[in-house]
């Protein structure tokens, strides 16, 4: 088993994607199959960007289980997702104007993440959102 913690800061667009790049590099060194790695990379990137845009910041935890699972947990400190069902609808976005100016906020984030991952678990409250996605490797 292996785990690693990364921190994500609110509105830190300059470093957008850095955590995902690190995770991707790590998994590449591990020799994860490239088809699976592609899904992990895309999902991780989307989720990281989500945290930067929407949350007050938080933590990304990468766990690799000996049984051959990669788990990614995204824990943020709020404000939570108002309507999960809406958030899961492709094209729906609550992204701010500034985020859209950076080219983010197409409303494909969560649906994409779900499509990419093998297990998907999303819980939310005003004090924070917890997204846990898993991949069989």
């Amino acid at each position: 088993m292996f785990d690693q913690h990364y921190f994500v800061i609110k509105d830190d667009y300059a470093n957008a994607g850095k955590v995902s790049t690190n995770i991707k590099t790590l998994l590449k060194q591990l020799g994860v199959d490239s088809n699976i790695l592609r899904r992990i990379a895309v999902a991780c990137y989307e989720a990281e960007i989500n945290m930067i845009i929407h949350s007050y910041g938080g933590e990304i935890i990468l766990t690799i289980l000996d049984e051959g699972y990669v788990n990614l947990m995204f824990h943020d400190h709020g404000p939570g997702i108002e309507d999960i069902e809406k958030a899961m609808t492709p094209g729906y976005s609550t992204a701010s104007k500034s985020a859209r100016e950076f080219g983010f906020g197409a409303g494909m984030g969560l649906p994409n993440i779900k499509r990419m991952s093998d297990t998907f678990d999303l819980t939310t409250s005003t004090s924070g959102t917890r997204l846990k996605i898993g991949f069989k490797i």
Partner: protein
Amino acid sequence: MRVITYTLHKCVKCMHCLKTCPTEAITIKDERVQISADKCINCGECISACKHSGLSAKGSTLVDTKNYKKSICLVPSSIYCDCATEKDARRLNAALNKLGFDELVYLSEYEGAVYDLVNDLMEKNHEGMYISSFCPVVNEMIMKQYPMLLERQVSFEYPAMLAAREVRKKYGSDAGIFLLCECPSKLTFGKYPYGNKESEIDHCLSIVDLFPLINSYRNEDEAELQLCTQGIKSVATGLGQRFDAQILSVNGMKKVRKALELSEFGLSKEVRYLSLSACFNGCIGGQFLWGNPFNGRLNMHDLMKASHVAPKNYSLEDIMKKKDVSAQKNKNMFEQLKRFNAINDAFDHLPGFDCGACGYPSCRSMAEAIVDQVQSIEDCKIIQRRNQNAGERV
């Protein structure tokens, strides 16, 4: 295949090469630079980084022409990037003719054919992005470091290989085929000096080594010029593409890596075709060319006016290279994971400065060496000093 070798007796350990190597292929051990053949992609960054000219890549020499009944030389279009006018180009051609080859074959029309076919293919392509490159460095980098993108890669035969095949068909096995190379990585194209056994090209020559000779032959004489517009476009990136917005040319090692990183996240959806070259401004920025790539691009642009040869006629099947699937290693994940954990444990004990003082490019590669029991944690200079300081205090 690795073309770069360390030639000096003793290394001063300035670590410039160590730090520039994009694939962490270099380690410095016992005052010698060692290059891992597995990791090296022949980009030649270390050759320019070494202040003492200790690293080099050499091609064959003209003496080798004596071994063949007939010698044929393949000339890439990028060699003309130095020529400001058509006249200059003709003079250069005359000088090349005096090098002693029986025949010169100009690659321009082959380069043009490949360039045209790539563009044709992209016009028809409406799904996702394709990566194509005439640059062997980039191709090798994708294979070694960005395996996720392998299926996006259009594998076309290099123009030099196509030309060599045709020349071989024409002259048979007695002929010696020589290729002028504008960068270290193209030295891998031939049988000699680096042993590419399947290749039809017999010898690879580095242009920079021939330059003094070419220069001494250069005078008022002029020879016929055989250039093809599309061929010129293919060696100098950004010289106008057939359709604009969805084709993206990226050149320079750092930018190429950035483009590949972003593509791995699926962020280049709008781009249909990513054309990559490791050298600045494409092949005209090759290390074995003497001109400057800024002027070079303008010169090439001007030379397009003087080009009148049509590209060679090839079909898509002719130039498609079979994809080497076997290259992808099937590693045992669980064994890997064990090793991976061991590396991470070792890594946690290292300072993480990536200073390179131990001779390894990063703390991570040092950690790998510790796990492989090539090095021990006490070899870390920072830890050595910490231990020393602690000892003094006691």
